């Protein structure tokens, strides 16, 4: 039912409605991807928006400089983000706890600085403007596909041996190693998978907006929003990120918009409330209360 409704929505929805749904899909893809690395392995990626930005720039450069079709550029955005993840994940995943978190935070700042510096390719601080193309509806389907794929992937991983091993790392990395799990390799795989979704979403968002600049594709607030969405829905679950993305985006769009001057304050308060009151998230609480399967 829902799938059909979403599939036919662009035929009758307004331009804004389609764009708002597209945003929800984007957040599902982002939150779901963050969940893959941080929800499952416990390694807090505090700069996950770096992959979104890397994908956005990869896609935008290929579209504007090499005239790639946008779908191919979007896939390339996923590959680009994955490449960044490989380069950075190999050393950084050896860091523990807050060190990894801050290394990721730094990665985001550094990517932004690099993008600004290599202006021949990226337009630097002036940003990149893409040729006009009115393809919101096809991009809507592509983004929906990305969100669905990330969610499906989460389900497959959680139900697999690979997922179990990741969760073992989360609970006790030393014990996991002692059990013979190649933790470095498992973490790296999860990290690479978690970079693909944001990369594709970034490239699609860049194509849809038609203009990107370093400041707007590498904001720390995006990382935090992903994290809060996952925490709210329930980390390490399949549907938690989806639930969190929908609830938070809708409330942001329709409730917070009425209080522009208090927006950040409310966001801060929500973060604090989620951390203190429901660290396990909605689904986490339900899981415990009703003994739901962990594949929820």
């Amino acid at each position: 039912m829902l799938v059909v409704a979403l599939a036919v929505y662009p035929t009758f929805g307004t331009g804004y409605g389609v764009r708002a749904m597209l945003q929800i899909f984007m957040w599902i893809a982002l939150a779901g991807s963050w969940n893959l690395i941080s929800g499952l392995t416990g390694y807090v990626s505090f700069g996950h928006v770096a992959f979104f930005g890397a994908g956005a720039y990869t896609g935008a450069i290929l579209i504007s400089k090499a005239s790639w079709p946008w779908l191919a550029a979007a896939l390339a955005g996923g590959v680009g983000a994955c490449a960044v993840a490989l380069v950075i994940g190999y050393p950084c995943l050896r860091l523990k706890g807050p060190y990894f978190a801050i290394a990721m935070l730094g990665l985001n700042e550094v990517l932004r600085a690099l993008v600004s510096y290599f202006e021949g390719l990226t337009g630097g601080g002036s940003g990149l403007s893409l040729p006009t193309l009115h393809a919101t509806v096809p991009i809507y389907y592509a983004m929906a596909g990305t969100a669905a794929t990330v969610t499906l992937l989460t389900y497959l991983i959680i139900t697999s041996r690979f997922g179990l091993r990741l969760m073992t790392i989360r609970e006790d990395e030393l014990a996991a190693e002692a059990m013979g799990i190649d933790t470095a390799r498992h973490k790296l795989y999860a990290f690479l998978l978690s970079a693909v979704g944001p990369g594709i979403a970034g490239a699609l968002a860049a194509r849809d907006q038609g203009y990107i600049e370093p400041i707007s594709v590498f904001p720390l607030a995006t990382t935090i929003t992903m994290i809060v969405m996952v925490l709210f829905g329930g980390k390490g679950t399949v549907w938690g990120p989806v639930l969190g993305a929908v609830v938070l985006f809708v409330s942001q769009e329709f409730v917070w918009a009425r209080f522009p001057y208090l927006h950040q304050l409310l966001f801060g308060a929500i973060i604090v409330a989620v951390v203190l009151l429901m660290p396990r998230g909605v689904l986490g609480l339900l899981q415990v209360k009703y003994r739901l399967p962990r594949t929820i």
Partner: protein
Amino acid sequence: MNIAITPAMVGQVVISGILAGALYAMVALGLALIYGVMRVINIAHGPLLMLGAYTTFFLYSALGLNPYLSVPATMLVLFLVGVGLQRTLVFRVVDAPELSSLLLTFGVSIALVNLAQLAFTSDLRAVEYLTGSFPLGPFAVSKTRLVAFLFAAGVTALAFLFLQRTRLGKAIRATSQHREVAMVCGIDVQRVHLITFGLATALAAAGGALLAVIVAIQPEMGQIWTFKSFLVIVLGGAGNYPGALLGGMLLGLIEQGASLFLTTQLSEVVAYVLLVVVLLVRPTGLLGGRQT
């Protein structure tokens, strides 16, 4: 268009780096204390520094208090703010996974910035006190930065004396080395946490007070200091308090050097690459291994 780099320029930049370094060290020492004692990375450290700058500004503009005399007053005010934060919010996440403390302090951080925007508006403020520089051979030593250096060095020295010599300071160090053992020895750990957070906030506030005379004050001036402070404590070795001094100087010199030899845009990249390399080669920091 390339400028030939002369020894005089390098000297000038080294001076700037050292002057900045002391300030980095002092502010980072606060972050290091909180991390050492509670294993909490306080993302709100920078915004607390911003509050310190505003406090100094208002003491200066409303009461006409000399900005340097207001440093202790600012530190006291923010000490209380820090104690309040710890008492109401931060103590709840001391033993939680790091994600909780990172997010909680991030939430506090953006709320503080937003509150500052509401209360003080986004207009720039400045305390125009000392200007110009002392000539030193071919070099120019900025007056405000020199005074900030001396103050930062003094405050940091006092903080070390406090940690080394007083009972309370010893209690803080003991708690940071091993909380359970400290508890067994009769140390009131909750109280130590309160005081540590207050002290750390006061150190950030001192940084803000000194910066008030150097840069323009605005609600978003602080965030960058959280990351810089973290760089400093990683370079020096987290939990190793004298390491913050070395880390601060290093960061100051690296930033200035990168700006001179490359461009200012890349100075952050250089600092970051160094951070990752240090973490990988010596995860305990450059002075790691030796606990205070």
